[in-house]
């Protein structure tokens, strides 16, 4: 996994609550057997109508072209565990997602793919939704800088480390091989 660096970009405001992973990547695109190439299907049914971009959907607004930060509303990523949703966001170019809350499986999947989900207060999210300027996200310093004002955010220290160092968590777990073996010896079911 690639280490996470500072991100500076305009933020795309997706003004909907309870966005489920079926919307992030609809089921008809889950049949690919690789991890790449899902960006073109991101928010497909909201983004396209009969293959043509819908003018009323925010991702089709040229102002947000090349945006790396997605602003979302409460309970983002609920529903299916499909990691394809994260692969699609990543492949499209989003590296940071900011919301007031995330669904658990989705949140976990983000860290496995080098994407930083940031949980903020209602007030902060409102501020971010209303700014037109670029936002800077500094994971090392745990801050979102908007209009030169830093807003601090919380992240669990180990998750921060995984992103900053781009760790392979299977390799990390395998460092405990001896303990897994001991556990297996005494645990039978």
């Amino acid at each position, binding site marked *: 996994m690639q280490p996470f660096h500072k991100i500076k970009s305009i933020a795309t405001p997706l003004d909907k609550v309870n966005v489920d992973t079926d919307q992030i990547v609809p089921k008809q695109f889950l049949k690919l057997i690789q991890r790449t190439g899902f960006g073109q299907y991101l928010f497909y049914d909201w983004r396209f109508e009969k293959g043509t971009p819908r003018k009323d959907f925010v991702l089709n607004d040229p102002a947000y072209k090349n945006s790396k930060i997605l602003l979302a509303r409460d309970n983002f990523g609920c529903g299916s565990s499909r990691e394809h949703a994260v692969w699609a966001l990543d492949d499209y170019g989003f590296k940071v997602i900011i919301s007031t809350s995330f669904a658990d499986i989705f949140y976990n999947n983000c860290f496995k793919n080098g994407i930083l989900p940031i949980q903020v207060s209602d007030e902060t999210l409102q501020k971010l939704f209303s700014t037109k300027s670029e936002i800077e996200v500094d994971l090392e310093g745990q801050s979102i800088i908007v209009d030169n004002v830093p807003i601090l955010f919380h992240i669990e220290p180990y998750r921060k480390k995984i992103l900053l160092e781009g760790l392979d968590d299977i390799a990390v777990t395998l460092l405990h091989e001896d*303990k897994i073996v001991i556990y297996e010896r005494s645990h039978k079911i």
Partner: protein
Amino acid sequence: MSKTLFEKIWDSHIVVEENGRSLLYVDRHLVHEVTSPQAFDGLRLNGRTVRRTDLTFATMDHNVPTSDRSLPIIDQTSSTQIKALERNCKEFGITLFDIHSPNQGIVHVIGPELGITLPGTTIVCGDSHTSTHGAFGALAFGIGTSDVEHVLATQCIMMEKPKTFEININGKRKNPHAVTAKDIILSIIRKIGTSGGTGTVIEYRGETISELTMEQRMTICNMSIEAGARAGLIAPDEKTYQYLQGRKYAPKNYDEYVSLWRETLKTDSGARFDKSFTLSAENIAPQVSWGTNPAMTTDVTGVVPFPDEYGKGNSEEEKGAEKALQYMNLKAGMAITDITIDRVFIGSCTNSRLEDLMEAAKVVKGKKVSSRVRAMVVPGSQLVKKNAEEIGLDKIFKDAGFEWRESGCSMCLGMNPDILASGERCASTSNRNFEGRQGTGGRTHLVSPVMAAAAAIHGHFVDVRELDLN
């Protein structure tokens, strides 16, 4: 110290604790075709193997056709994914219940059916409805593909400890055939919301839960994820032990295990939960969802709500309800029983077991499906199908005009050819009414098998308490 059932299972599976997280041992790993190919590729890429092939079981369910299994699969991408699972299971030495196996079925139906699901175990699967297995007192988590790879390679999962949430359901339902487990869980989600359980493991408790059969308990636990929970749990009891006895993969020294389970697998009196919610079952009515998430649900005797009334002052929820009504093409204030439907789907990991089909068949027997409706029954597994056919359920459904299909996830998520056309409205026994879930532009109403069957006959929703279901 007093512990909850969740804490007991969690604590007994910790291999290592570090950085505020626990490395948990996984007792059973269930694998299916959609969320696994990239995980197997990852293993190959890094020269890793599957650590415990004896604890890993695979089947194909999400995109298998439910039509004649002797015919080739027409959809090339589905076929590719199914072949990839066959190839991966062969290469890594994993037991696979393939499309022609008498044990094939929806992964959450076959786990319990084969005795792979056991009380007190940890179970994971690359599918959010893994919470189903909690009905047996197993701690069961849905995981993403990266974690599937992690479990294949290490037989462990790294997690932060979830919070505990007790949901007490007490009281007797007035008409348990009409007010089903599905209505109970939809009532709960309607009240606590789709993120009400986020970050928690729910334990369902109370006399109403004790009285439910194992299949009904599975329906309850199955939809824990629709409230955002990491898992759902029900303490095992004699019904649980009886259900699993003699199943193919249940342990040979079964009685010894049962003695141990009886002793340990319950929440101690005095144990504390982080969160609590209580519901009386007495006044629950049959439920019908009207919107685009499972919390957007109301009584069959109710009306489609006005967005401001639904939002209760939360402008985002209000906007969400407005969009939902637009998508669902429904008018606020309209009676639920006036909603006419085009399709009926009885199936999915929520409601496709023998008992679900038996209850639905009671409504259907001797009647005809409305001329405006296309209705299908998709049994959850080949074994459910076989058992249903042995007692003549297939004939009851077919005589009424239902399609009787082969087992799989089918129209719950429409990855196979069973999909809604844009604008079609479906009474569905599945678990998600998200936009486009059953087909782009399709409209889903979540209901119980009995309600779905009644909607098929009448062409619209009816108060199933008025039907003779005994």
